[in-house]
């Protein structure tokens, strides 16, 4: 056993008890007969705080012994906590925050704007309504909200109806009106490990607005943003009727024999 020479001065005398190869450290009794190195001089009355200090020191002591004996522990850089990387990454937005994709005049004189946006708030109730419209099975709202919040990228399409005779400056009345006429008509999201892989889930467009290239725009923007971040493995799981849609966007089915498998509990 390695001995740590104890100093004779009273200030460090309490460190001597950490040399003991004991697993459990009972503060209630300092059995001087068990210890080899305890100096029988002063045990100050405040034993509680001292116990904490000695335990901490003893842990380090054993760690150094263990690493010295076993192998040359070159502790190279461990994984940084995500907080530092987060600052680097989120300074520049991944997707354009908001811009108008399409603007057109409808039959009754109203102007319709299709607005693409990312990073905005999505009302989960609106999303569920949209999922119902496309015929998807219902999913719990809390899970939907959590999934949206923790996705790497979420892109949405909204349709805003404006009367053609509206003034250019936005008064409060107009804004409120716009809020009421703002309708969620499309969404796509992607999860990722921010470095190598990303998976695109939940691409959907309101059936009334399909066939106009809106879904294509959604996916294209997502893919472009992912590639700009040097994320090379972009995958998705397409229903049979949309395989051609994704093929036209540059996706390949089962490339190099890669397939996705899903976990099913027995």
């Amino acid at each position, binding site marked *: 056993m390695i001995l740590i020479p104890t100093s004779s001065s009273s200030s460090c005398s309490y460190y001597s008890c950490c040399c003991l190869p004991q697993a459990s450290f009972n503060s209630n009794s300092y059995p001087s007969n068990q210890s080899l190195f305890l100096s029988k001089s002063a045990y100050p009355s405040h034993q509680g705080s001292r116990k904490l200090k000695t335990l901490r020191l003893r842990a380090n002591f054993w760690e150094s012994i263990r690493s010295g004996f076993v192998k040359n522990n070159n*502790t190279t850089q461990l*994984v940084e906590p995500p907080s530092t990387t987060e600052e680097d990454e989120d300074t520049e937005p991944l997707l354009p925050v908001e811009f108008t994709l399409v603007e057109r005049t409808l039959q009754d004189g109203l102007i319709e704007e299709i607005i693409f946006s990312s990073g905005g708030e999505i009302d989960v109730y609106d999303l569920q309504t949209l999922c119902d419209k496309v015929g998807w099975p219902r999913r719990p709202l809390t899970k939907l909200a*959590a999934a949206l919040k923790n996705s790497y990228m979420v892109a949405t399409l909204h349709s805003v109806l404006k009367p053609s005779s509206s003034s250019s400056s936005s008064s409060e009345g107009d804004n409120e009106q716009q809020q009421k006429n703002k309708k969620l008509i499309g969404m796509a999201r992607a999860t990722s490990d921010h*470095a190598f*892989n990303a998976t695109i889930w939940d691409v959907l467009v309101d059936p009334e607005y399909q066939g106009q290239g809106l879904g294509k725009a959604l996916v294209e923007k997502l893919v472009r943003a992912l590639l700009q971040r040097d994320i*090379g493995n972009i995958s998705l799981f397409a229903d049979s009727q949309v395989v051609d849609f994704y093929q036209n966007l540059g996706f390949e089915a089962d490339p*190099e024999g890669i397939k996705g498998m899903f976990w*099913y509990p027995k």
Partner: protein
Amino acid sequence: MGFAVCVGNASMELRWVRRSKCDDAPRSIPIFISTLKKDINLEELRHLYSRCDHSCDRLSKNGSGIVDMKKLRTAISRSDVVVSVFCKPHHAVLVEDAEEETLSSSLRKQNKDESSLGDMFQDVLPLTPSNGQLVGFGRAYSDYGLTASIHDLMVLPSLQRMGIGKLIANRITRLLTSRDIYDIAALCFEHERPFFKACGFADDRMGSTTMMFTKSLEA
């Protein structure tokens, strides 16, 4: 000794795996499973990637060679589940192919005589991530609500077929289902499919097609 390995802790666990055939090598070896990111040494992990011949870029045309360190660090820090498996270094160095068998077994015998004390000491010391060698790994990222994707599940070739890969897969799925995530996907090559099948994975029951983006970035 109470301070060495917290056996009861949810994030770390000591286990034994056994191999079906045993020549000179011990029949069962202890392994240490950790789900903590701080137990991962990135250099060791990168070494494991190359030892397992596993590339982070799944499609061969995307990238090649050694894993980028900065990206690996980001990927690990952004993965929601990581599982690492360690074993004692002298267990990891095992016969890899038949040609080297005679040479390495004679070496082992030699080493046994010379460093038997060292081996004995190694056997007695408790296995921890800091004194063990990384031999198995797996990670997954999710959206904490609905879906998760498993990637980079690998085990050192010389220690395969001992159940380590299955342990890793089960640990990942258990962690995910404990967070109420049941839509768990794993991308795999053709030769990896039997393994995933044995771990409880199957083709999508809804019949979806796996697709990956293969076009290069347009100017």
